[in-house]
């Protein structure tokens, strides 16, 4: 009981110090809980949505077995209309109706502005049926009748100020539908961001599905008392041959819809958990440091406790119990903050166009449990080492003056271990750069990163004494005696300086590493673009994400003047049998022969031009090696939805590239010979080259040709590079977000260290003030100490990170990341910023030191 009491009193006696550590715990727990709440809420929203949209039993066409890597041909798979009648006759079926739904459409207003979601939500076109009434209700106007009427959802109408009677053009694979808004329908559940339009069934069938006799699916409604499972069986019986169909109950439909959302949700989740991880990692340092300092500060007190009979275990336990308090307080606050964070994220998503309603806010019982357990366990584990050290304090410490003499032997052992780990890590990194295969190098890289990190943390104190001296020689000399005092103070307890700096180091190392890799990615890609891309212009869907270019847009591009050539590029699925008898599903690139000038490829044998000849193709080096394919061999190619052909391998392309790595090329005309026109995929991307000297005119003409199709973008090479940079820039922004968080937590650590140092040095500060150190000089001294610690951490972190990044690039050179680019401006900015971080961290401790009463400080007790 007394242990509890002393722990409790100690905890409250050091409220300020504990508060800083609690913030670290709070931040990490908040991120974890925020992530959980946010993803749970998204799940709830989508669950509700999908449950509302799905019929009791849905009959969908069986998806052809195909590779996820292939984009599909942009044309919908369907069920015959006759299935509707048969399903309706199933026992227990109240009604069945054919549903048309297509997500490969774009809706524009009369100014050709895209009405689709800006947050990546789909645009969906369908037929207005009773099934749609499950999730929507008509709020104004009337249901669409005939090909000139369209209904739109209320969210989209609001966002784009659409009214009844406005004209909308829906661009589909089977041509455009121009129609006026006849009605507006409102979602009964939260619509996270899809834009939805409805037509009457006949229009939807012909324009969206390409014929009057097909549907996307059949939805069957059960009679009262008939379970979905039962109905599913009955419908299967009624349909007879179900080999072409897949039947889903409402539950299964919802699950399947959600599966397709999965990857998007996962990305969010992992990014957030990344933040949580960083906060946690840096937080651990903060906690270790706080408790180490508390223990050091209380050495005499602990010595006294030991002298009057406390056992080591009791002392040890009393520190751990303090950590427990801290963990509980920090985690509880963290869980609360996490919910707030989730709400904030939902608002942020709302601003970006993805609507989530706080009504759906879901806090599962596991969330607080996970948060609490995580926060408490981490805190107690982090406090373990300092607690053990507290237990080792000898009763003699009570009699000694102040502070424990540094344990020289432990320090040497630690430094030795650190050195060994660092060297081992360095060797692993070096080995990783020399690896022949990425798969062999990655574990080496991982081990190298881990070992060097732990090694650096272990030799932190050693490095601190060395690096701080050098830094001081460079930075502090100009500050005269105050600078020297700051240097000595930073050096006084290298272990503490090392640990404080390490907190900053960890975050900055990650950031530096990722920004080196990111910059190298941009540099490598730019270099390759310069080397291999010969086309002047590239046309591709703005959103990416597997969208294809509709034929009418491709046609519009073909009429553009001042163009030397326009290249179409499709990916056609095929089952490929090599001469060695192995069969694989592959996507063949069906392109115009001009493609070889648009994107130049090296060949290891044969001529690429020949691959565009009749019944010829090329294969990639990797495939060729694996299946021992030589130029002149014949491949059996079973085109998806088409015939089987024998194609002669005319070239083998080198795979030492990033663009089109491993691609197999055939001429579009070859593909068209075996694949019927209506199943031949739409273009995935198009390239154009301007007639010499007409680049500007051609660019303008291409843009105006695409004005009616805002879902596609035309880019010249400069735009394209910029886009590439932007994409990686966006990734790096997440990294910088991590950096900001890591810095916030590390700043707390520096504040903590300084605050404690100030308290510890009360008498020294008093003495210095008495013999004439002005407040200003005193504050400057503390600020300089802080800056030195921060810069020390930054130096180590950036150095380590650049090392990691360079090793990663050398390893990834095997995967085409050929150019090492160190983003010096970023590195230097971070370095300089770290000095300011130091200044900022010193604000409060310096202020408090300045306010210290000289007399109290020197009073003899």
């Amino acid at each position, binding site marked *: 009981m007394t242990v509890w009491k002393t722990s409790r009193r100690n905890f409250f006696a050091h409220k300020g110090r504990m508060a800083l550590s609690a913030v670290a715990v709070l931040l990490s727990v908040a991120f974890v809980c925020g992530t959980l709440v946010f993803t749970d809420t998204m799940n709830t929203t989508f669950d509700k949505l999908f449950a509302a949209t799905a019929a009791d039993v849905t009959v969908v066409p069986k998806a052809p077995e195909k590779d996820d890597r292939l984009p599909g041909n942009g044309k919908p798979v369907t069920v015959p209309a006759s299935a509707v009648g048969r399903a309706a006759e199933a026992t227990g079926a109240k009604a069945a109706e054919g549903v048309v739904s297509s997500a490969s459409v774009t809706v524009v207003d009369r100014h050709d502005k895209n009405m689709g979601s800006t947050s990546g939500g789909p645009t969906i076109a369908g037929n207005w049926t009773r099934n749609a009434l499950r999730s929507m209700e008509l709020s104004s106007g009337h249901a669409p009748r005939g090909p000139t009427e369209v209904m739109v959802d209320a969210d989209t109408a609001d966002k784009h100020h659409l009214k009844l009677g406005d004209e909308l053009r829906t661009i589909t694979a089977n041509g455009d539908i121009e129609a006026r808004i006849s009605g507006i329908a409102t979602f009964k559940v939260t619509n996270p961001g899809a834009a939805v339009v409805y037509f009457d069934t006949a229009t939807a069938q012909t324009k969206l599905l390409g014929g009057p006799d097909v549907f996307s699916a059949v939805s069957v409604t059960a009679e009262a008392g008939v379970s979905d499972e039962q109905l599913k069986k009955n419908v299967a019986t009624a349909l007879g041959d179900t080999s072409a169909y897949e039947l889903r109950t409402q539950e299964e439909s919802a699950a399947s819809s959600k599966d397709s959302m999965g990857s998007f949700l996962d990305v969010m989740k992992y990014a957030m958990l990344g933040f949580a991880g960083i906060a946690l990692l840096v937080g651990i340092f903060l906690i270790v440091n706080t408790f180490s300092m508390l223990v050091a500060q209380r050495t005499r007190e602990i010595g006294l406790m030991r002298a009057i009979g406390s056992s080591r275990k009791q002392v040890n336990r009393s520190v751990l119990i303090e950590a427990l308090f801290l963990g509980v307080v920090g985690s509880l606050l963290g869980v609360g903050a996490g919910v707030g964070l989730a709400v904030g994220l939902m608002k942020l998503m709302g601003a970006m166009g993805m609507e989530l309603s706080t009504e759906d806010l879901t806090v599962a019982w596991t969330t607080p449990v996970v948060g609490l357990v995580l926060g408490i366990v981490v805190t107690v584990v982090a406090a373990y080492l300092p607690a053990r050290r507290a237990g080792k304090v000898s009763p003699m410490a009570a009699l000694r003056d102040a502070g424990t003499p540094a344990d020289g032997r432990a320090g040497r052992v630690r430094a030795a271990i650190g050195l060994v780990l660092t060297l081992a890590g360095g060797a692993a990194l070096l080995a990783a750069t020399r690896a022949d295969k990425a798969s062999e190098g990655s574990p080496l890289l991982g081990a190298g990163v881990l070992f060097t990190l732990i090694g650096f943390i272990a030799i932190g104190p050693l490095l601190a004494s060395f690096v701080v001296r050098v830094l001081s020689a460079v930075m502090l000399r100009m500050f005269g005696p105050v600078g020297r005092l700051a240097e*000595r103070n930073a050096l006084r307890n290298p272990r503490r300086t090392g640990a404080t700096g390490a907190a900053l180091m960890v975050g900055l190392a990650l950031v530096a590493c990722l920004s080196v890799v990111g910059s190298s990615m941009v540099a490598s890609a730019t270099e390759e673009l310069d080397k291999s891309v010969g086309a002047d212009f590239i046309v591709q869907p703005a959103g990416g994400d597997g969208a294809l270019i509709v034929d009418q847009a491709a046609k519009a591009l073909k009429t553009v003047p001042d163009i030397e050539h326009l290249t179409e590029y499709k990916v056609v699925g095929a089952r490929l049998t090599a001469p060695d008898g192995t069969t694989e599903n592959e996507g063949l690139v069906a392109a115009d022969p001009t493609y070889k000038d648009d994107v130049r490829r090296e060949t290891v044998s044969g001529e690429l031009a020949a691959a565009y000849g009749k019944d010829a193709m090329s294969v990639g080096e990797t495939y060729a090696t694996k299946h021992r394919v030589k130029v002149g061999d014949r491949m059996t190619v079973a085109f998806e939805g088409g015939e089987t052909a024998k194609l002669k391998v005319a070239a083998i392309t080198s795979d030492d590239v990033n663009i089109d790595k491993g691609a197999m090329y055939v001429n579009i005309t070859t593909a068209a010979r075996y694949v019927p026109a209506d199943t031949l995929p739409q273009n995935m991307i198009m390239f154009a080259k301007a007639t010499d000297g007409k680049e500007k005119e051609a660019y303008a003409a291409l843009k105006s040709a695409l004005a009616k199709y805002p879902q596609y973008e035309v880019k010249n090479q400069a735009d394209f590079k910029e886009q590439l940079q932007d994409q990686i820039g966006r990734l790096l922004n997440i990294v910088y977000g991590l950096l900001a968080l890591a810095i916030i937590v590390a700043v707390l650590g520096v504040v903590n260290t300084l605050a404690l140092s100030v308290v510890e040095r009360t008498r020294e500060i008093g003495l210095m003030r008495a013999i004439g150190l*002005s407040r200003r000089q005193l504050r400057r001294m503390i600020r300089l100490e802080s800056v030195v610690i921060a810069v020390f951490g930054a130096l180590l972190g950036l150095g380590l990170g650049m090392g990691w990044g360079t090793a990663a690039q050398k390893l990834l050179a095997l995967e085409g990341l050929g150019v090492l680019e160190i983003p010096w401006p970023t590195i230097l900015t971070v370095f300089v910023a770290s000095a300011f971080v130091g200044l900022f961290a010193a604000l409060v401790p310096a202020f408090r030191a300045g306010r210290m009463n000289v007399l109290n400080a020197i009073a003899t007790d």
Partner: protein
Amino acid sequence: MTTAVTIPGHGGEGEGAARSASMRGGGRAAGGRTAVAARARQIVKAYGAGETRVVALDHVDVDIARGQFTAIMGPSGSGKSTLMHCLAGLDTVSSGQIFLDETEITGLKDKKLTQFRRDRIGFIFQAFNLLPTLNALENITLPMDIAGRRPDAAWLRQVVETVGLAERLKHRPTELSGGQQQRVAVARALAARPEIIFGDEPTGNLDSRAGAEVLSFLRRSVDELGQTIVMVTHDPVAASYADRVLYLADGRIVDEMHNPTADQVLDRMKDFDSRGRTS
């Protein structure tokens, strides 16, 4: 009582009288300056207000003669430390005026006061006199470093030799004995040539032998270097090194003694004690 060190002789004057409180020792003053290094007029230092009001100094008038070694004695709670802190510009007074030479320090803002301490005052505390991160020499020159002044090399050498630390200048405080640490503190106080050195029980933490050593340095700095020193102490032996002893009780100067011996001081203290008890 220590006998290991001879108590320095005094100019033959016997027990001093409280009446002639000020103007002695003027002959040792540096040329052109007033004979009084510091003076306090009607200073009051009170803590709290109303019923809890405690008066630590009660209308004290005192003159510190230049070039003299003054000891302030008194029982615990007599206000002797407070008097010293106020004279040294470490603490503020509730009312009254304090002058150092001709400068009034009462009412100075912290910044000026800090400068004043830095440039014109030297300090020796009972313990924790030195910065553990600096070596002995760095500690000695610290006040001048802070002020951005170069120490006078010849003077510094002389001071270092006087306190006998030439061999130990590169040592950190933790590598020095308690006596050596206090000698470094004395050297620091002397090195900047302050107008007055204030000592707050400078030998309080030392054994008698080391204490005597430090005290003789202080004595010598007065005799040989003309330094003005004010020292708070409760040790009669320490006080016996002074030219003049001021006795404080209940925040008032109640007596003074010139050129005391340890026995005289002790007798006087006993006298106070018994009077204190009977009154």
